[in-house]
């Protein structure tokens, strides 16, 4: 198994939004999808997943609806709302800015100072 990284605080919400933005998913599906798109590099604390989903639903960033799972079980499916889509876009842009700024900062060599 590849080496996994701890999630930075606040990034779980962003990842959930991203996962749900690709396709409606149930809770367990969200977990699998994040693992898949992060190529198993991120360790998702499973206990925090559901409170995060409920918080996002309460804030109207994702919507929930009961449906049928692949193996014909009743499952709660989450989809992205318009507000969620906006939030995901903002957070992605913010994250990219932050990441590139930190990357630039960390790649500085002593000659450039």
């Amino acid at each position: 198994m590849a080496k996994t990284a701890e999630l930075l605080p606040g990034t779980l919400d962003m990842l959930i939004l991203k996962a749900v933005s690709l396709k409606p998913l149930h809770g367990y599906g969200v977990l699998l999808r994040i693992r898949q798109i992060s190529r198993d590099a991120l360790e998702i604390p499973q206990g925090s997943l559901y409170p995060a989903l409920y918080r996002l639903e309460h804030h109207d960033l994702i919507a929930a609806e009961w449906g049928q799972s692949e193996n014909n079980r009743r499952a709660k499916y989450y989809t992205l709302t318009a507000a969620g889509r906006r939030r995901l876009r903002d957070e992605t842009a913010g994250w990219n800015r932050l990441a590139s700024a930190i990357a630039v900062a960390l790649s500085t060599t002593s000659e450039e100072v």
Partner: protein
Amino acid sequence: MLKRFRSLFRVLTRRREFEDGMTEELSFHIEQYTDDLVRSGMSREEAARVTRRELGSPINIKADCRQAFGIHLLDELRRQLSYAIRLLRKSPGFTATALLTIAVCFGANLTIFAVIDSVLLRPLPFPEPGRLTTIFNTYPKAGVERDGSSLTNYYERRGNVPAFTSLAIYRYGTEIVGEPGSTERDQTMRVSPDFFSTLGLGPVIGRSFTEEETTSETDHVAILSDTFWRQRYNADSNVIGKQIRVNSVPRTVIGVLPPAFRFLSSDAQLFLPLASRPEDRTPSQRHAGGNVIQMIARLQPGATLAQAQSEIDAQNASLEADDPQAKMIADAGFRSLVVPLHADHVVAIRLTLLLLQAGAMALLLIGAVNLVNLLLVRASGRVKELAVRQALGAGRGYVVSEVVVETTLLTLVGGLLGLVIGAGGIHLLGMLGVDRLPLGSRIAFDGRLALVALLAAIIMGIVFAVPIAWFNLRRHLGNALQSESRSGTSGRATQFLRHSFIVSQIALAFMLLAGAGLLGLSLLRAMAVSPGFQSDHVLTGHILLPWADYPDGPSRLAFAEKLMDKVGPLPGVLYAGVVNNVPFSGKTGKSAATVLGHILRPSESARGHYSYGVGGDYFHAMGFSLRSGRFLTADDSAGSTRVCVVDEDFARYYWPNASAIGGRLWDGSEVGKDNEAFTVVGVVGGVKQAGLTEDYAQGAIYYPYVFRIEDSFFVAVHTTLPPESLGLALQRVVRQIDPDIPVNDLRSMETRIADSLVARRSPALLAGLFSGIALLLTAIGTYGVLSYAVAQRRREIGLRMALGAQPGHIRGQFLYLFLRLLAGGVLLGVIGAWLTSQAMQAVLFHVPPFNLAILTSALCIIALVSLAACLLPSSRAARISPMDALAEE
């Protein structure tokens, strides 16, 4: 934010579904994960173990999920609520006292607030009511404070005062409406064409009056009120164009007003044009107002009252410049005042209402203090329990919210009971005749009031919680846990708080008592005033003769004479008379008279006097007292002899050093022809005309009826029977003469006088009621605090008695504490009473604001009541058995 509330609300309404969904979702997750692990080669037990480890406890996850939705707060609230209910049910005595206190204080405030709200606060039912004003003429130096406006004023001002968008006049009246045989007398208003547009609310069906409809030849039109339209025309939408008989003359219905239309306190059902002749509108009639016609005006947006006032003043000044009577008018202090319509209408009762509300607030404050005291006592009984819970981890926020939940629960339930009491109070006010006050008929118990009550209850709950929460939080855990009894932890601060509560309670109750005393004494003094005539066994009624059937003096006189002839022989009738206006009728109007030989002194102006035409045996019927000369008789009227009777105030003013008999005067403001002068043949006692509290006797003149015939007059009958029993007979007699004419406003003179005191009686009664409750609450409060002090110091007392202290000594100690509190309270109370009496001055009648007798009685009452409340606990203290007290715990 709104969305979140919606989502929370959705969850709360389907709580079961929410919980089940959460469970299902989690078990789905667990199953799937376990299956996946098994599929990847793990044993089922191993997979289940890994799942449990990685997921954590489902209970915790669910709690976190609930928190994400904010449900945990409500769950907490529910838990605290049921805890509070359990606590309150455990001490039913405390709960009942608290609820009753809140309910009574709350109900009292709600009742008065309902009146204040409808009379003072709620705007008049017109668009932008703040811009509506009224304008009236005043001649203060002539003793005429208020004279309405004249037709001339209206025609001169209309369109010429830039500060007003529009200006209108109106007069109240009653007319006989309907077909012969089924007539009724209805309240009406005669209004100028711009009346409705000035108010901003006019007919919803049909149209308003036009300028062409303001002469008596063309004014045969009418506008109906909504009520009238519904009752008489069954809300017929084709009513426009129908004929309606008003005073026997057919008029055409041209409009119907909306249901919401209500002008001030008027109950007018029918609106007619205010018609006049060109000669009524000339400059010579400028000061002929007589308080009959009133003027309203709407301010331009942005214009101020001061601006309008200065424009009116400027116009008056330029118009008076060429008035032949300009000097006399100026000497009378003439001005036309512009005042806000709503405020002017309620000016007479505003102060009384505010004082009553202040009284109710004081009551609420006393109740609140009592309650906080009781709560503090309870809290100190639970110190240990609370300390244990805090030691076990109850946070400060938790302790505070628990108190808030409990006090708010109390105030909400008490407030609900208070609503019931308030509704009853409003009903009681109705029985006291409060609906006859200006805008009084608007007083109602409505949703607006309930909402105010709800908000007030919540605020009160939070306010009550503050001292309790402070008390709960400030104590040190360790101390509380160590101290072996509840008496161990009364800090000086809480003791001081409790004592100052008692002091302020006594002070407030003292103020209420003193205020109620002043109002009560005022009422008694007013009731003790002699009206100047014999008010018992006199029945009076108002008759209005329709213009069409009684167009001139002779026909009206004939009616009055026929009436006298028929009423006289009725069984039980001693005397009967007619007059333009009886005292206490609610109508007042003064007119000028000129006395031969009276030369105005430099600072003196012509005076307005009450002037009446009297026929039949009016003086005997009303029991007037004769000072000198003789009464007028039916012969004076029949013979048209130019004689008159004046009252002693009039006589004293014009003939200070001589007899008035033989004096000569003219009806009007100028010396007239010699053969038109009236000779004074008698002087009668002064009579209160407008009310018992009328202090300044303006003087009255009584002319033979033939010289002052009007279409509207009163009949007065002196009977040996109870006066009301004669009402039907009187009505029958009038109908015999003319079946179209009803007798209106049938009341005995005693009733009229009693009715005139309603604005004094109700406040005095309410204030008395309030101070009674305040006394009771203060007694409860004093009792509570002293009982607590005794219980707290039980061991100390026991110890001292074991060492030889006498019971009398112990009792004395508590009495001394009580006396100190009483002295402090009374001292503050006297200061407060002095301040309130200053504010009350305007509503007092012949009572100096600082009345020693009232203050002394208030002191005695409050001392007696609170002493009684203090004796019980202090004698209990004196009976404490040292053995028992020391053996406890």
